[in-house]
């Protein structure tokens, strides 16, 4: 389901083709292809502990984006209203995440959504909680996740 690729040179760990679905809409749409413009490490050479942690981050992001609370509801509403339209959000988004040793998300960065409020909401959502485990100390950061933004109406 996920393809982990990273590069030591730029100290990045990339999860490409990993998709996020919005709960409770359910369907997971895979975003094909890898994030562009970054040098990757062969996934088979990435330590499994990195992959496990990345899967956990993916799961947490998915859960937080699907949460029934004000900010997540507002972001999902924005996605439903603007997805597929001109000036709307892209079908997928590469999110770079920096994790603290205690499992909290220090910061995230991602491409512009063309809507400042939606960007702020997504940033709030993705930095609001604790992943639940400490990142492997040797894991390269930032963690790069390709999120498929494919809500169902």
């Amino acid at each position, binding site marked *: 389901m996920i393809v982990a690729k990273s590069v030591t040179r730029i100290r990045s760990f990339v999860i490409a083709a990993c998709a996020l679905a919005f*709960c409770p809409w359910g369907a997971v749409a895979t975003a094909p292809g890898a994030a562009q413009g970054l040098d990757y490490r062969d996934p088979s050479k990435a330590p499994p502990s990195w992959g496990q942690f990345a899967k*956990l981050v993916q799961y947490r992001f998915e859960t937080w984006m699907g949460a029934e609370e004000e900010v997540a509801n507002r972001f999902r509403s924005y996605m439903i209203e603007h997805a597929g339209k001109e000036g709307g959000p892209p079908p997928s988004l590469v999110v770079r995440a920096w994790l603290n040793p205690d499992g909290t998300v220090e910061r995230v960065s991602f491409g512009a959504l063309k809507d400042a409020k939606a960007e702020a909401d997504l940033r709030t959502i993705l930095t609001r909680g604790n992943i639940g485990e400490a990142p492997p100390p040797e894991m390269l950061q930032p963690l790069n996740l390709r999120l498929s933004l494919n809500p169902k109406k």
Partner: protein
Amino acid sequence: MLRFLILLGAAALASVEPATAQLWMPVRAPERTAPQSLARPPEPAAIRREKSGTAFFVDDSGHMLTARHAADDCARIIVAKEGRFVPARVVALSPNFDLALIKVPKTLGLAAVFPRNTTATVNDMMFAAAYDTLPGMMTRGGVVANATVASGRGGSEAGYLALDSTVTFGASGSPVLNSRGLVEGVISRRTTISRVLAVGAGETKAFLSGNGIRFEEDDRPQMAGGGSRANRAASISARVTCLQS
């Protein structure tokens, strides 16, 4: 941590039956007791009977493993994790081992990884705990290990892994994690004050394969060395409650 283990030990001491026989044990002569379920005992049947155990995810589609005695004869099964409660259904009960395969509509956590080659040997440090006890362990900074693989003498059974462990009620179905974060067994029941049996990884994998579950296997570490196995256990497991009418 020490205080926590002592408290758990006290709980275990308080919960066992009177001695009926002696076993071989390294430190003090333990006393054999009747095998005791580690599921929470049913509440008085005033309104509804229920028993609770622990279950853990074995794939990304919501399949979970738990102890058979924690999931059989249930009118309803509820899986609870991090404030969410979802219904589960029984997919299969093992005829030979204390294993049950249940399913929730959507995964609520990370899928466990099993060892390709079972290598657990006597005195290996393991981790196993009831899901409900994990938050407390994490608050205290995590726990690396709280059990050791015991000699098979005096209480083990074919297909089961014997552990010296203080796990108590609610631990049935808990994953037994080795130092690499791999599942070496599934907690089944207590046989003496300090000894617990877990269904071995080989038998557990055979049960999953027999039911068409595609689980992950790897012998490489799935978590950083020295990382808290309590946190990994919390990532993969949940509380399972069996409601009996």
